[in-house]
């Protein structure tokens, strides 16, 4: 089997919570926000893995940790066969030539005082490219994202949200990376523009053949963009598999719930009685057993006791549910 572009093995990222002075005096154990809790996955070149989740799922932290913008608490990240999770300093910096990111907010991710040319050229400049090379590459990526050549001398604030996001994509592309993390790339954009950017991203992947980790809360976006999808809930992966298979016949109750909650532009198809109660659990103090159990309509005793592991329940289909595969009936968890 060909080597996977990116492999993540049991990745953990905790953020310490500062206790009160009273806690510290009483030597209470330090609490952590368990943002990413033992996630394992892999992405191939020319593949888009969609990471879907709601607030508190940990998907954004996953994206940033995979790029080593945050140091993992434990676990391994392997990129093109090389273990990168232990890199530091200059070696880590060199990684940026091959792994890039596009952020969610096109208004805050571009320096308001810099000209477009400087914004886009920055990754090249970081590695000491010559002036002539820079000019040529800036032209190349501007064309790739469909921005006019005369954009270079303008300031970022003269452009609309969609155009700014194109600038951000151009910046990510200029070093010809192998892998890009797309963190909610269209969430801050108008719908008509979102479609343009999604088309653009697919075209780029088809032309160049890079790997994408697409992080989003929008199930429709992941449907359109991703070959495979990973569903996250409260820091853990609950389901992974081929996009169509997962969305059409989910192997985890949370996935079913998520899919059922997506509104469709069809008034005859209103979301039925989506039987969901409660809130996303505390990331500091998750419930024992399966993290979804307080809200799961199918929860049994074992769910409250033992945490289910992500296992392959069918070829290419992974699920972290004790009853995965047995709950294959209606996608809407109707009231019992």
């Amino acid at each position, binding site marked *: 089997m060909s080597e996977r572009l990116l492999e993540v093995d049991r990745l953990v990222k905790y953020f310490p919570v500062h206790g009160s002075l009273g806690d510290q005096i009483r030597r209470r154990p330090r609490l952590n926000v368990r943002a990413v809790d033992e996630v394992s996955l892999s992405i191939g070149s020319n593949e888009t893995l969609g990471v879907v989740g709601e607030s508190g799922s940990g998907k954004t932290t996953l994206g940033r940790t995979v790029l080593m913008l945050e140091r993992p608490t434990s676990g391994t990240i392997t990129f093109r066969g090389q273990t990168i999770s232990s890199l530091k300093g200059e070696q880590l910096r060199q990684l940026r030539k091959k792994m890039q990111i596009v952020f969610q907010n096109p208004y805050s991710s571009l320096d308001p005082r810099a000209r477009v040319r400087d914004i886009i050229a920055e990754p090249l400049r970081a590695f000491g490219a010559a002036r002539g090379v820079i000019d040529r590459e800036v032209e190349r990526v501007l064309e790739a994202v469909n921005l006019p050549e005369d954009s270079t001398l303008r300031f970022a604030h003269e452009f609309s949200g969609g155009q700014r996001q194109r600038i951000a994509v151009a910046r990510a592309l200029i070093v010809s990376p192998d892998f890009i993390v797309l963190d909610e790339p269209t969430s801050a954009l108008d719908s*008509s523009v979102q479609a343009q950017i999604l088309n653009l991203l697919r075209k780029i992947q088809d032309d160049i053949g890079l790997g994408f980790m697409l992080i989003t809360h929008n199930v429709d976006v992941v449907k359109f963009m991703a070959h495979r999808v990973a569903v996250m809930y409260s820091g853990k992966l609950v389901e992974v598999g081929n996009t169509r298979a997962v969305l059409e016949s989910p192997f985890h109750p949370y996935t079913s719930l998520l899919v059922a909650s997506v509104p469709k532009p069809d008034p005859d198809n209103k979301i039925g009685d*989506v039987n969901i109660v409660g809130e996303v659990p505390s990331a500091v103090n998750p419930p024992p057993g399966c993290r979804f159990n307080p809200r799961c309509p199918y929860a049994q005793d074992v769910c409250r006791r033992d945490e289910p592991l992500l296992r392959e329940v069918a070829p290419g289909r992974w699920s972290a549910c004790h009853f995965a595969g047995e709950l294959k009936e209606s996608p809407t968890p109707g009231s019992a």
Partner: protein
Amino acid sequence: MAEQPLLEIKNLNVSYRSAVKTIRAIDNVSLSVNRSEIIAIVGESGSGKSTLGLSIINLLQKPPAVVDSGQILFQGKDVIKLPEREMASLRGTGISMIFQDPLSSLDPVYTVGWQISEAIAMREKRSASWKPGPFKREDSEPAPPSGGARRVVGVRLPRSRRRGAYSEEVIEALKRVQIADPERVIDRYPHELSGGMAQRVMITNAIVQRPSLLIADEPTSALDVTTQAQVLRLMREMRRDLGASILLITHDLAVAAQVADRVVVMYAGEVVEFSDASRIFKKPLHPYTEGLLNSIPRKYREEGRLEAIPGDVPDLRSPPSGCRFHPRCKYAFERCAAERPHLVEPEPGRMAACFLRYSS
């Protein structure tokens, strides 16, 4: 059903003026809302939808906003011409509004219970049967909580959270928006709630006042999709239980489809299509609506690309000539650049501002 509409907007024009430019945010918009009706106003940025919502409840920042002309008739009275005192008494119990970010709409120093009680108290004061009593808790303002002051000092003393006078009704109201454990929630402060719960508290605040018209400006945009599904269902129930009309402002056509009876599509300050929900999604009359529907990524990856609307939302400082959408429209022809289309009615009950729909 020939009763007078609850809300009638007639030829409204609103612009934003600054030292150097004038932006026409709402251009000759007319629409009407009947009782117990849910209307969705759908548009992207610059469409004027939020400005419209704020105009109806008269909360525009003036300056820089200026109402150039038009009428907004709520129960027959022109809201634009009302003096502020009368308008203030209309807000809350007549017209209510909820916003996208619940945390900035809830006062952080008062508990949930107190804020809802305050809303109920306001309703009671305005009702005909209110009599000022000799400081009896039931019919005067709820006692202000000491919660705020005590929190400033930083020490949380017991008994520092006052519930307010109408605890029972508050708890009932919270139960109706499906907040679990309302007895505990009423003692919480807004920042202790999750986004979904805070939004539901805000909705509770609005509905306990039993408004005739509720304007909801992107109420679910900041919420998770699972929470959004609950809130949308809640809105349908509100219409049923309270008989309130809802004006739902959103950028998401799918959300509109879930709750609306009729849909108004706005683009660059104008109404481009106005139709009942059952027909607009199956067969949109305006190319922009059609483009918006196509922009929703409903296909799987292997099924091909999306048909995206090219170009960007226009700069309102210098909008395109003729039909504002024509530079991006795949059906555009000569007339579209030269003349501005007005709304016509190609089918009964459906209106569109597009030359393609002109019968002549």
